[in-house]
């Protein structure tokens, strides 16, 4: 069944007005699918991840619906949402370093957490240890403080805790951006392993690094200024993108396996629009080399090929 998000709108209340961080986002994530959510800062990718699990005080659910496995997720209602958190929807936070209670031993902290959900630590201890073995963490970590673990170990520990109750949807927000390249690879592959073993059913993997998403995601969704620009299979996004933003973004990435003797890459001139008062029509219009009159109207997301959605008049 998976996740269905329909025309989701989430605005931030600020003193200067509403910031339209998510403005009509529609997509679905299937069972066993890893959706890579890519985009630059301010495109709404973190807002989307947060809305699906817990909105902070400034966020308002202004419109649209979210369905998980056929049942509606009450994302705008902090209390009713509580029933789904951890067991149905779970998150691996970006900063694993600060995600664990520094004053409790890790095992104790997990016990507290389970108790708060009305579960017994004893009943789950065996599964917990089995999963620690799987991510190659010694069982002794349960008796140590978070301080005693390295960054990669902490990130893996948090991953095990987040997925302990086999949630249907897992949100991984920039989980590797604070890690070194070799650790990043291990953590990213662990996430794929969790999916393969059925610890989680669907994953939304949020990152700014398209090359990393390409390594592990089945589908990539590129966002720009609060809207979905393009969504397709990972290899289609990388090898045959249709949206001009995706094209420019991918062509601006330097690569390790390529020689750049005299060849220069180009960036995208300009900067994203303010979401306080976003322009009408296509939001990429000002920076787009293909922009024409039609772009003053908002482009609908069109399925140009099966499972390849593009929001551009020229695609």
């Amino acid at each position, binding site marked *: 069944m998976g996740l269905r998000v329909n025309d989701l709108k989430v605005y931030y209340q600020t003193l200067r007005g509403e910031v339209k961080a998510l403005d009509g986002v529609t997509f679905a994530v299937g069972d066993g699918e890893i959706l890579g959510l890519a985009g*630059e*800062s301010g495109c709404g990718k973190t807002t989307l991840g947060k809305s699906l699990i817990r909105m902070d005080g400034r966020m308002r659910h202004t419109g649209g619906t979210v369905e998980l496995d056929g049942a509606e997720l009450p994302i705008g209602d902090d209390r009713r949402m509580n029933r789904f958190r951890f067991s149905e929807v779970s998150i691996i936070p970006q900063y694993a370093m600060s995600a664990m209670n520094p004053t409790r031993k890790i095992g104790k902290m997990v016990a507290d957490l389970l108790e708060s959900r009305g579960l017994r630590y004893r009943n789950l201890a065996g599964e917990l240890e089995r999963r620690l073995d799987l991510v190659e963490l010694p069982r002794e970590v349960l008796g140590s403080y978070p301080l005693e673990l390295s*960054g990669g170990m902490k990130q893996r520990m948090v991953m095990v805790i987040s997925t302990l109750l086999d949630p249907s949807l897992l949100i991984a927000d920039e989980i590797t951006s604070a890690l*070194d*390249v*070799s650790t*990043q*690879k291990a953590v*990213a*592959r662990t996430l794929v392993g969790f999916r393969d073993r059925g610890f989680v059913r669907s994953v939304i993997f949020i990152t*700014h*690094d*398209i*090359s*990393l998403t*390409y*390594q592990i995601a089945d589908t990539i969704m590129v966002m720009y200024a609060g809207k979905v620009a393009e969504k397709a299979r990972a290899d289609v996004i*990388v090898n045959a993108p249709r949206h001009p933003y995706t094209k*420019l*973004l*991918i062509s*601006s*990435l*330097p*690569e*390790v*396996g*390529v*020689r*750049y003797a005299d060849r*220069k*890459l*180009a*960036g*995208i001139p300009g*900067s994203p629009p303010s979401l306080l008062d976003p322009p009408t029509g296509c939001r990429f219009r000002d920076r787009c080399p293909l922009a024409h009159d039609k772009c003053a109207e908002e482009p609908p997301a069109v399925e140009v090929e099966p499972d390849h959605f593009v929001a551009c008049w020229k695609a």
Partner: protein
Amino acid sequence: MLKLDAVAKIYKVGAFGGRTLTAVDDVGFEIRSGEVVSLIGESGSGKSTVGRMVLGLTAVTRGSITYDGADIATLPRKAYYRSVQGVFQDPFSCYNPVFKADRVFRMIKEEYFPRVAAPEWDAKIEESLDDVRLNPAQVLGKYPHQLSGGQLQRLLIARALLLDIKFLVADEITSMLDASTRIDVLNLLADLKSRGLGVLFVTHDLSLGNYVSERTVVMHRGHVVEMGLTDKVFTDPRHPYTAKLLSSVPQLTTKWDDTPAVPLDILDYGAAALVEVEPGHLVRQEQSLRSVN
């Protein structure tokens, strides 16, 4: 020419400084004018410490850093900073939020060029903004929060250029920038290089190092493990650590699943020496203490 010769940094740690921690050991390489050298390493490799020592922000414990033959520890600070400047990772915290961003230019004038006439100075500012491809009308008179990260970072480079510097230490300057603007800053470095600036490009991101630099120095746990021409190091890595790093970088051309994993043994760099495997390509030959896979 900037030259590092067997540079080491040893910190005293513990309650009374009883123990020592060797952050950097036996690092030696040189940067010539018109050349970008990338210094690549993971966290804790000592790459930033090397950058800070070159800038004189941290004292060298052993070995020496020389600029055109003179030890930088003996050079007058102010004169040295006329030639060598640094730009760091976070452009947002480099500015005083209550001052207009271009006040950094006025501070340079007061400190280094008190006798330059105002019109001449304005022309100089315009020239250096032009060098970093910023439109003066868009950045002068603005507060830091009104400018983007890329603009702030370029403003800092323009500030360094006002001093007619010969060398720039760029420590992770693009890691807080978005992909679409990051490449512009890298191209800017390439431009400045072609006009004779030497750059020490400190980064953890191998793809960026591969893009901008002629020569690459790879550090691991305080030691240089491999250095040589960027082409050589990236296409034919001779040290297992370099090979491991390269195999871990996510790429758009190959998938991790299609490349074999590179095992890395636990290495002891203690007394190992750098050996020249081909002209200009040096690799540390150490003993493997223990095999892991």
